[in-house]
């Protein structure tokens, strides 16, 4: 939309929301949050940008096709479920890395799974919103 006020605030809100979304993702295992809400907040950030600047601008800062993003998310999640099989454990058994990592916290297949959820949700929401936005009759 043609509004300096909205556009300027969006410029600052976008990174803020993205950082917030990652924050939600990684703390979700111990606090409210998680990949799902994280992904939604991230896509809200881009949706806001979309409303402010239009589809072409948002595509220029989000260059990957959303479908690829959701495919990546699904792949990540699915891989993390299959991963334990190679350790001789049943599907989707949690496999944890012993030490805590920066940003991520404790790393294990469930957190990878949650990250997959994050990307799927991001890809899905953006794909739907972009599509509806671009659909001119």
């Amino acid at each position, binding site marked *: 939309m043609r509004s300096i006020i909205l556009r300027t605030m969006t410029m600052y809100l976008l990174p803020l929301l993205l950082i917030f979304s990652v924050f939600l993702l990684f703390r979700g295992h111990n606090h409210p949050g998680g990949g799902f809400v994280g992904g939604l907040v991230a896509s809200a950030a881009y949706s806001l940008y979309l409303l402010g600047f239009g589809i072409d601008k948002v595509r220029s800062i989000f260059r990957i*096709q959303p*479908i*690829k993003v*959701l*495919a990546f998310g*699904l*792949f990540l999640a*699915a891989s993390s*479920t*299959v991963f334990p*099989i190679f350790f*001789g*454990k*049943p*599907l*989707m*058994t*949690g496999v944890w890395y012993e030490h805590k990592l920066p940003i991520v916290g404790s790393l294990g297949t469930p957190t990878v799974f949650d990250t997959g959820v994050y990307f799927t949700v991001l890809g899905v929401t953006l794909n739907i919103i972009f599509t509806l936005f671009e659909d001119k009759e």
Partner: protein
Amino acid sequence: MNSILAMPVVFPLFTGIIMLFFWKHRQIQRIINFLGSTATLALAIYLTWYIKTSGIQCLYIGAWKAPFGIIFTADLLTMTMILVSGIIGFATSIYSLGTMDETREHFGYYPLLQIMIMGINGSFMTGDLFNMFVWFEVLLISSFSLVALGGERSQLEGAIKYVILNLLSSSLFVVGVGILYGITGGLNMADLARKIPMLPNQGIVNVMAMFFLISFGIKAAIFPLFFWLPASYHTPPAAVSAIFAGMLTKVGVYALFRVFTLIFVTNVAFTHTIIIIIAMLTMLSGVLGAASQMEFRRILSFHIISQIGYMILGLGLMTPLGIAGGVFYIFHHIIVKTNLFFVSGVVNELKGTYLLKKLGGVLKLYPLLGLLFLIPALSLGGVPPLSGFWAKYTVAVAAVEKGEYLALAVSLFVGLLTLFSMIKIWNEVFWKEQKAEFAAEQQALRQLPKFKIAMMFVPIILLAAITLFIGLNPEPFLDYANEAAQQLLNPSIYINAVLGGAQ
């Protein structure tokens, strides 16, 4: 480890995901899809053998013991469904190579197909009621997309009814699961089966049984909940119709079989009597619907409903023979119905229409197609010695054993009307001469590329061969169905297999 039990879900999932990465690369998707369905079929065959030889198997997903986590459980009923889904998935994949238009292939037809198969297999495999809801949704959403993909007006109109009524069913399903959890504190089906007889208040169990009957009944398209099916199944491309016709309602039927042999068995006199009544009405209503139609696929669609009635009747009888008959019926029907839709698609490729009024003369043009139609058609009509006869016969004998003579009468009468509708198609499409005014529109199959023709006929021949094989050699299938029925009628086997370690 039993992680292999999850592979009928994992294979299609990864096939689907990989195809998403190759979005709009049509040729690559075609190859991946073919490989994926072949692998799934091979897996299904292996698994069936594995379960047949080693009994009920469980996979405790995430290594959480039942009833705490989600489990996959495979008994013979499950494997029946998985096997047939493998066959149908494989056949449809090939058939799609011959009939699917490029545009749809560009817009994710194959990933949608694979994910739908994933959802179907998940519904069969899971031993957890809520997880079943999730798989239902997976297959539903993919089927939503498949039924609407193409965006023709009829597709959209059909899809609206399909989507809304199925969502309604899902809502009832999930509420039912939630309430059941509120009552028992369990979600695992074996756990529920164990807890429900111990409940102090049995009255509410009947209520929940009706809840699930309605919810699954919508999915299974029983009377009077089937409306979405005839409104939509004839609108998408033939390949999609075919796999829908074969598999989708059967997921609902499977769920009914599962729930009403495992969980809601405390008041059979009430629940299963209602099922029998509904079964009879379903048979009649469906077949009458078919009798009134003059469009190839709509006739077939209504027949799905009436055939569901037979399966449900088997369940309602709740005797070994009845259940065995039901299981056998499901297997037979999926193969046959899918094949009939395949044939209808070829006829459409030949003549460009599904309307009986405009069709005709196909037998002269393609006698082989006539034969390939007759095998599944007569089988559906219950002509011996084709598979459909054994299915109907088994259910009928079970009805007599139980003293349900009215059910016997209805099932036989419906059998006759089914035969009538099939003959109607045969008369109008194959025997009748096409009217000159419509003949002009036709495009000859012979002009189609050889590859396309082969891809259309291979799956039809494959399924017809299976139908014939079952028909001429039903004993192993009936034995298998009987064994499955024995498992279903002795829930303790299932419960012990699932909860044995945890208790």
